């Protein structure tokens, strides 16, 4: 933009160690996956070039297509619940004093629990014989059984994810809200702005940046969800809660079909890349339109 300013780009060399690290932890393994995806590797000396065959099989596999659809519905559902709920919680959280610290600690607790432990907690919680929720619903006369009814399994997984991850959205929004200068609220009071107007024209625009992070994190996380549903329902009943990661793990680890699972991982990766890019660009673009001076 400013062409007569001399830019010194030497600081980029400081990124080099990170780049080397990423090369070893991500780029080289990903290249290997690409190599596997076009071959049938039977052993160190027996491999056959298969070209695009695995991709064709994976794209036309009806079980994977169903898992993909399920995954999309799941991710969009939890985003639709967690983002508004997180904003709402952040808005009603105490702003200062010991109450603020206490609420922050309470709200962070679910985030500290490992994924598979969350699955176990909910597995016990929803059991009809010893689980508080399962037993309680049964005593109320509701036929609730996550191993038999697909609807119950879905509702429980969504509830579990909301319980586990809404705190992250709430904390991000809370930090975003705290960084709004008091002067904005004073100006709003002088204008006698309603609570809704304050939210719509001050708080929400100032939250855009943290919401981008929240939406991206929650989308990527939920799109790759594995341990929690695996422990809670094992993908059942039938395959009604089998998401993409679990299909991939069954194929790659259970059946050792490395070629097809490599092809599948690449498709999976491309979809995550595309959706994340669309989210990121849309939100950043909305912001740019509002402040043409580039205040963002």
């Amino acid at each position, binding site marked *: *933009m400013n*062409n007569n300013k001399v830019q010194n780009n030497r600081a980029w060399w400081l990124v080099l160690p990170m780049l080397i690290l990423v090369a070893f932890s991500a780029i*080289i393994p990903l*290249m*290997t996956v*690409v*190599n*596997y995806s*076009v*071959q049938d*590797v039977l052993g*160190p000396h027996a*491999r056959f*070039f298969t*070209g*695009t065959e695995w*991709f*064709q099989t994976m*794209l*036309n596999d009806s079980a994977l297509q169903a898992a993909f659809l399920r995954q999309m519905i799941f991710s969009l559902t939890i985003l639709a619940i967690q983002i508004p709920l997180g904003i709402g919680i952040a808005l009603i959280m105490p702003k200062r004093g010991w109450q603020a610290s206490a609420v922050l600690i309470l709200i962070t607790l679910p985030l500290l629990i490992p994924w598979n432990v969350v699955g176990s907690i909910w597995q016990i919680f929803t059991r009809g014989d010893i689980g508080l929720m399962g037993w309680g619903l049964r005593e109320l006369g509701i036929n609730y059984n996550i191993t038999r009814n697909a609807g119950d399994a879905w509702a429980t997984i969504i509830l579990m994810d909301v319980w586990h991850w809404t705190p992250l959205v709430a904390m991000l929004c809370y930090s975003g809200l705290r960084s709004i200068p008091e002067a904005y609220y004073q100006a709003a009071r002088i204008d006698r702005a309603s609570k809704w107007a304050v939210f719509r024209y001050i708080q929400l625009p100032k939250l855009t940046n943290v919401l981008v992070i929240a939406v991206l994190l929650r989308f990527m996380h939920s799109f790759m969800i594995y341990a929690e549903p695996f422990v809670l329902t094992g993908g059942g009943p039938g395959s009604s809660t089998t998401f993409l990661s679990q299909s991939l793990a069954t194929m790659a680890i259970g059946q050792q079909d490395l070629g097809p699972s490599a092809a599948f991982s690449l*498709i999976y990766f*491309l979809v995550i*890349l*595309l959706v994340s*890019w669309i989210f990121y*660009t849309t939100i950043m*673009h909305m912001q740019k339109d509002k402040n043409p001076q580039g205040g963002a």
Partner: protein
Amino acid sequence: MSWMVWTTPTAIFFSSIAAMLAGMTLWEILSPTVERKGFLPISTTRGDRLFIGLLSAAFIHLGFIGFTTFSIWIALALSAVWLLVLMRWG
């Protein structure tokens, strides 16, 4: 390197990506990019357009492989044309 089970097509693929990145770096040094608005709904830099082009090329290839019986070379040719259009007018 043998554990990476290289094949000629994948080696060519990664070399072209590396060549593109190197070329883009050189181009950026010779004449820095200017963000502009073309037929895409967003204003983009040169690197943005290359990224969009490559990502859509991946999906063009997947679409051809998965849901048509056309040769993959048609997908490649189509992607190359699309990438050029995108770089010039996108």
